[in-house]
């Protein structure tokens, strides 16, 4: 496959970016959840 570096690179870049965002959101959620009582969490 010609230009494979660009094509695979674009997929890797996309998944790395959204993966990083997902990880940051989950991590901040876990950190904050430790400090907030369950009754304040409307989703539980």
């Amino acid at each position: 496959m010609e230009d494979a570096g660009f094509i695979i690179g674009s997929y890797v870049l996309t998944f790395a970016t959204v993966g990083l965002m997902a990880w940051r959101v989950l991590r901040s959620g876990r950190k904050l959840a430790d400090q907030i009582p369950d009754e304040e969490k409307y989703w539980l």
Partner: protein
Amino acid sequence: MTTIDPARSTREGVHEQPARGGTGTRGTRILGIATIVAMGWLVAFGLGFSPADRDQQESVRILYVHVPTIWIAYLAFTVTAIASGLYLFTKKKSLGWDRLAGASAEVGTVFVAVTLVVGALWGRLTWGVFWQWDARLTTTALLFVTYVGYLAVRRLGGSHEQRARRSAVIGLIAVLEIPLVHWSVRLWRSLHQEATVLDTDGDIDMDGLMLFSLFVGVVAFSLLYAWLVLHRTRVMAMEDLMDDRGLDLALEARRSEGRRSERRTGTPDPRPAGDTIDKDGAR
């Protein structure tokens, strides 16, 4: 604005409440698994099963990421505008709408960034350059900068209500850029190709497997968008609670300091009675 009794939080301590897995629920876990499966399908179809294009050759595979990310970004910014409107024009002024607007804009901005970078890689293969000051590229870059500005405004100081009000106004104005971006290829002479799927004549001139790969991409990024927005909205709710709690604790500390000073000197606190800080941080 939800408040926490500062006396209770001081007495009980913040770590005594057991945490139950952050912002996740059964629903978000199912959504997360569905997203991962859909992304796997996108890789399989985008990089494997779909054929090469007659003109673009293999570089067409980049478009299965490039196109869905900008479409979902349009959706995200539209959700931001609707939630902003619901905050501004409903009587209740629920901060939940503001948080939905903010979370959706964050995800949309990341998706536009992905669109721009991946589009530059596609441009290098197809046009021979990473960037051109072409109408579509320039308006998309402008859209990105506008929403970075929107997110910056959300981080300015003030109460949650002040944040919600000013960002809602920007959210309603910024969404007007989307039609400009979409129709820029028709309004101006453009290097960028015109719409293939979202065309006004409704005729989709595309191979079936290519169209299906694009559809898989749209489904995958829609699921990811929903999952991210759900989690981010919950994180924002907790951040707001922590802000309120910090302010409550600061107020309680100041009152205690005043009472101690009163007991020590036998005279009332010299500060005028009106010299207090309200919940918006104003004197």
